């Protein structure tokens, strides 16, 4: 799980022998400070995501998953909105197919992120492509937060640091947070404490980032209306799948 940190090693050498190791005239102090900022941001983001994971663990157990099932979702599926979506559909009586469909559709954005990250992360500081196993490992961490943190860095080395540090930080906090949340959920009275209300609140909290454009707002409104309109007539969870017609607002330029 440890990110390939050959770059950090190179920096240490720069400090000891600046003339030989630093021919391009980079300032190692500034470089180190910039790297430190990226690392700090990754750790901070990881802490925030860990708290979200707590609520996922609680919500998953209240929806009927075991502690291990909640943990397996966070470890192997590792993409938050899809995990919440699957447990929401399952918890309200939906079928495997309906839960799978909605969660898989939400995961499609990771494909788009993969396209964006490939050029930034899949080679090392010498421009050589990472080994296939390492790229396959990196792929597991292609999610919202790593994409945001990586694409925010214009310097390619800082972008790679941002990707791996965010990946490591989030993977740890997401899984630890899920475990703690699930353990807490399994000993609490989830119904009377209103844990079912955690799902809509979580989805609502994820929504604003997607409402910044008028297209996004139309798509959201359509999704909500279609879902409510279809609910009485289709199996549980299927209305969610049909609600995806809201994306058709993206067809016209």
């Amino acid at each position, binding site marked *: 799980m440890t990110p390939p940190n050959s770059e950090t090693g190179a920096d240490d050498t720069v400090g000891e022998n600046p003339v030989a190791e630093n021919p391009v005239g980079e300032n190692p102090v500034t470089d180190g400070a910039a790297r430190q900022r990226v690392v700090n941001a990754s750790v901070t983001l990881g802490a925030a995501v860990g708290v979200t994971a707590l609520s996922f663990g609680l919500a998953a157990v209240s929806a009927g998953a075991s502690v291990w099932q909640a943990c397996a979702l966070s470890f192997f599926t590792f993409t938050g909105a*899809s995990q919440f979506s699957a447990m929401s559909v399952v918890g309200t009586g939906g079928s*495997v197919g309906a839960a799978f469909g909605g969660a898989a*559709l939400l995961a499609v954005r990771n494909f788009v992120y993969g*396209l964006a990250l490939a050029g930034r992360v899949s080679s090392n500081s010498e421009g050589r492509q990472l080994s296939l196993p390492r790229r396959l490992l990196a792929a597991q961490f292609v999610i919202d937060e790593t994409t945001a943190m990586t694409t925010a860095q214009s310097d390619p080395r800082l972008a790679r640091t941002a990707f791996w540090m965010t990946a490591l930080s989030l993977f740890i906090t997401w899984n630890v947070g899920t475990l703690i949340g699930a353990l807490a959920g399994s000993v609490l009275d989830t119904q009377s404490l209103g844990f079912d209300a*955690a799902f809509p609140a979580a989805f609502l909290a994820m929504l604003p980032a997607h409402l910044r454009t008028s297209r996004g707002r139309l798509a959201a*409104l359509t999704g909500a209306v279609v879902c409510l309109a279809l609910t009485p007539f289709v199996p549980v969870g299927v209305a969610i799948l049909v609600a995806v017609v809201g994306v058709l607002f993206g067809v016209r330029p």
Partner: protein
Amino acid sequence: MNLSNTELWFLIGALSVIAYLLKAVGFVVVGGRTMPASLGRCLALIPASLLAALVVKDTFTVAQDLVIDARAAGLVVALIAVWRRAPFIVVVVAAMAATALVRAFA
């Protein structure tokens, strides 16, 4: 929940496979290439449509029935919290607390 333990494990497995494939196909296989702009715009709108649908499903439905119950109070509180740019956990806990309060007193 209507699923057996085995079915839920099957769902978790299937979801993990598809989620990984979606991540890896873009990152490892296709890499760096672009897609038609209209397709890109549509894919970018998936979360808006689905998250909004999930919000109303989890607030206003029980199985196939449309209802207004204690969860609506939770949603109102969550809306205010999101509007005030509260952190994620504050939104969730406030919604849970409002729902629990309404259940306790209504």
